[in-house]
């Protein structure tokens, strides 16, 4: 249960923005979307990854699958370093790692039938289109709760929730081990969102899947995850099992994030009762020095402006990157 399926070490992705110009004379700014991030995902677990917009959580998810090439750092899958292997060798690993996207409209090719969409991964990995493939696709469709009649339909004939089911079927048809769910339920109405969350949990049990569940909704992440990692401006600031992190968060940002979630009952209104963090998220193009949260942190100390805290084990299985807990 605790063997890591995925290990990321010192993973970074820096984008050059606005550069180029005449013979590249204009200096490009560097956007550190993901900066020196290390963590593991254990086989069979769900690791939740939360953070606000621009924190780099989506980039991190895509880095793990090498949909984006990392600037530095390594990714190990099942003990094998996949960071620098060639395209053909990577294809072998792609069977085992898949992704589900946020936008149920942009994630399906409008010019392909549902059958072609779900069969594509099989065909890429050598299946011949025919009765056998069709059977596999049909089974997968039923698993995600869509009737076989859906096979020859096109994406525009489905609602958002149904499209998300098709996207899940496509991701699962190769029987992968790791699924990156990139805001997979964020675009859905709450009543439909619950259906998809339940489906993802059922499928995890049935197929022994490991999830990296990326989302900005803290209650959904709590519900589905075993452990949760919190990101802020390209850095992972805290990782712990979900009970610990929601009940006793150590990083001031995690605390603020949880405090900001609206109440679930009017009797628990938070205004005036909970600590708010002031200010906006700084631009990732020009992040603050030292600890990136220091501009908004209520407990800021001089050291925070100078030195970035390392992600350290504060308690068993609870890592945090904050000078407060370093002492």
């Amino acid at each position, binding site marked *: 249960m605790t063997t890591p399926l995925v290990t990321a070490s010192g993973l970074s992705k820096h984008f050059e923005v606005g550069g180029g110009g005449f013979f590249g004379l204009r200096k490009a700014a560097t956007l550190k979307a993901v900066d020196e991030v290390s963590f593991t995902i254990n086989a069979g677990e769900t690791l939740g990854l939360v953070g606000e917009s621009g924190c780099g959580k989506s980039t991190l998810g*895509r880095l793990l*699958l090498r*949909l984006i090439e990392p600037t530095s750092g390594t990714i190990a899958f099942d003990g094998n370093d996949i960071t620098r292997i060639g*395209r053909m060798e*990577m*294809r072998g690993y*792609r*069977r085992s*790692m*898949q*992704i589900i*996207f*946020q*936008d149920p409209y*942009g*994630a*399906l*090719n*409008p*010019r*392909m039938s549902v059958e072609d*969409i779900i069969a*594509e*991964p099989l065909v*890429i*990995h050598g299946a011949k289109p025919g009765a056998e493939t069709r059977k596999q696709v049909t089974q997968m469709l039923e698993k995600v709760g*869509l*009737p076989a*009649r*859906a096979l*020859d*339909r*096109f994406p*525009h*004939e*489905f*609602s958002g929730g*149904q499209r998300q089911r098709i*996207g899940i079927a*496509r*991701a699962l048809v*190769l029987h992968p081990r790791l699924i990156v769910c990139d805001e997979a339920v964020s675009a859905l109405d709450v009543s439909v969102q619950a259906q998809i969350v339940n489906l993802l949990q059922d499928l995890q049990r049935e197929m022994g899947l490991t999830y990296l569940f990326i989302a900005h909704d803290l209650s959904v992440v709590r519900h589905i995850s075993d452990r949760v990692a919190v990101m802020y401006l390209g850095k992972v600031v805290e990782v712990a099992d979900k009970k610990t992190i929601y009940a006793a968060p150590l990083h001031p940002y995690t605390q603020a994030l949880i405090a900001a979630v609206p109440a679930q009952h009017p009797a628990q209104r938070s205004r005036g009762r909970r600590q708010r963090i002031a200010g906006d998220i700084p631009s990732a193009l020009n992040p603050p020095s030292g600890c990136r949260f220091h501009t908004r942190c209520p407990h800021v100390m001089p050291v925070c402006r100078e030195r970035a805290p390392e992600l350290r084990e504060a308690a068993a299985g609870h890592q945090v990157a904050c000078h407060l807990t370093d002492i």
Partner: protein
Amino acid sequence: MSDVADAEGIALKREHPARATLRRLFRHRLFVTGLLLFGVIAVIAITAPWITTADPQRLSMRNKFLPPGEAWVFGTDNFGRSLWSRVVWGAQLSMIIGASVVGLNAVFGTLIGALAGYFRRLDNALMRVNDALMAFPAILLAIAVTSVLGPSTLNVILALSIVYIPRTARIVRSSVIVLREMEYVQAAVAAGAGHWRILRHHILPNAMAPMIVQLSFLFAYAVLSEATLSFLGVGAVPPTPTWGNIMAEGRDFMREAPWIITIPGVALMITVMGLNLLGDGLRDVLDPRLRIQQ
């Protein structure tokens, strides 16, 4: 209401997307009007050998400057040639040139645009050359190229292709750049698809809509430009009946025989307008967000 969707909310009525598009096209007033106008000219062009009796190049000084009437439908020109024959064969030449330019653009514009848009490494080099070619005023470049290559139908096709392929490539490139970032493309990469598969199954089919719209407008420009080139005397060589040639020759006689100019002019206008209407209709139906472009 409930007859359109079943319990799971999946539409019961099934229609292939291509069929649905066709159905909407044929309900579109502009498209149908354009298709009719263009269709008439196209049919005339194709059936030219059967609907003309007089040789468009046979001189007959006895019959010169006959106005349109029963014997000569469109009258005769300054050499007594049948204007009907000349305009009909001119239509054929316009169609051949237009279709060839469109064909070359479809192939090379797509190729260059897709390569530049999909492979970032190629983008800079390809687009710099593209920008340079687009910086020339279109007709001037076409004139210069035909003058260098020599006036002939083939060279007109080549010149117009050199002028317009960069413009087509740019349009294809911009849609490819958008499509490349679509999540379904990412999903295909995640499944292990190669570049070729991604281009063929995911990017090109979805880049077709703006491309088709562009090509129908391009057909219009090509026909218009060809007429302009031959009007200036750098197109197909004079005895060849092209609309531009006919009008250039008629220029000296516009007082006594205005029909020599007006008939091919109106034919040209019908063709171009038909294609423009066709393009408007296609744009409305295929890609409603696409702006009216050059």
